[in-house]
């Protein structure tokens, strides 16, 4: 005898991809498929962006005449 719940049709859950762009859809899919990969990818992207922005602003400040990598400026 078939169990009662089997009479219901199969339900497929899909992301509402039209509401988000491709970049966001990629993260959402990664999140849904493998949480560990999502975590590693998030950390790597954040570290890369953080390091890149840090280096960019350091060089920008150096051009303005403020060398944040000098010990004197650091102590100030």
């Amino acid at each position, binding site marked *: 005898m078939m169990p009662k719940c089997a009479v219901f049709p199969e339900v497929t859950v899909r992301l509402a991809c039209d*509401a988000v762009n491709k970049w966001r859809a990629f993260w959402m899919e990664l999140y849904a498929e493998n949480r560990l990969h999502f975590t590693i990818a998030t950390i790597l992207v954040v570290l890369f962006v953080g390091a890149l922005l840090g280096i960019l602003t350091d060089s920008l*400040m150096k051009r303005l005449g403020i060398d944040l990598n000098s010990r004197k400026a650091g102590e100030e």
Partner: protein
Amino acid sequence: MSWMYATMPMAGVEILWPGLVILGFGVGVIGGFFGIGGGWMVTPGLNILGFPMAFAIGTDLTHMAGKSLVSTFRHARFGNVDYRLGTVMVLGTVCGFEAGAQTVMWLERLGKVELYVRLAYLVLLAIIARVIVADLRSRGRFPDDPARTPRSGIRLSERLRGMRLPPVVRFPYAGIQCSLWLAVGVGLGTGWLCGLLGIGGGLVRVPALVYLLGCPTHVAVGTDLFEVAISGLYGAATYTYKGRTEPAAALIMLLGASVGAQIGSVATKYVRGYRIRSLLAVAVLGCAMSIVLKLLATIQPLARGALERAATVLILGLVAALAFEILRQFVVGVRRERSGAPERTPHAAR
């Protein structure tokens, strides 16, 4: 006005995205200016903007992990990091951090996380406000006199280091010798607070390193940044794995914070130490006020909308006003310096 709201896919909430930019840039300026990360403003700020509390903590930690990397390398190059002390403390920090994160998850399951974390923030901010006000009062007549620094904390560190529970370890850069358990204990306590409140912990760890372990201040700052980088990475990883991070919001804030932090740190050169402490007191009190408004909004359902709007306006207005004031001081200072006028701002006594 719908274009001003962006859907945050992980948290499933609509967020006022200019608010994220103001918060990221403003807290970057304020954090760089006061020499602390500013996580104590970001977590309540994100929560007030509409993120659930656990997401606010996770997102704050993730943006902090990216932000602290470069400043940690900078301090390491200056020789301000005691790696032995940092490594010993990391053991306690990571365990404490995970305990804090688990406390948040447990409170979330009970449906009490918003209330208890906000109350914990109020207690923390009240303690900080009390310390600043006491400091401002004690220096009232001689605002920038270093000789008026209270010495009770130094006596406490001497007493604590006197407890020789083995193994006793020597930390060469910090120039101190103490029980390994004391360093691990400091890491554990501050780590728990960081995991619970989603802060980097400079606000509590630097005073703990100075007053409990007896570290010189520059080594305390460098070693704290090392701890922030490690615990930030661990915190970002654990909260992301638990599905409580919004990477898009973290990246938007990181953009503003990286630029803001550099401006803020340079602005300290042009402002008197006493004025910096007064501004910090304003920031702490304003942040506490906005948390109180948000708490009242949950108690008073009839005035909920108005109170939530007031809390949002207060936190964003406060961050924007403080960042603007710091930027103004920065521009005035740079102009004065370039015109060759004598410096008005002795900062040696900060």
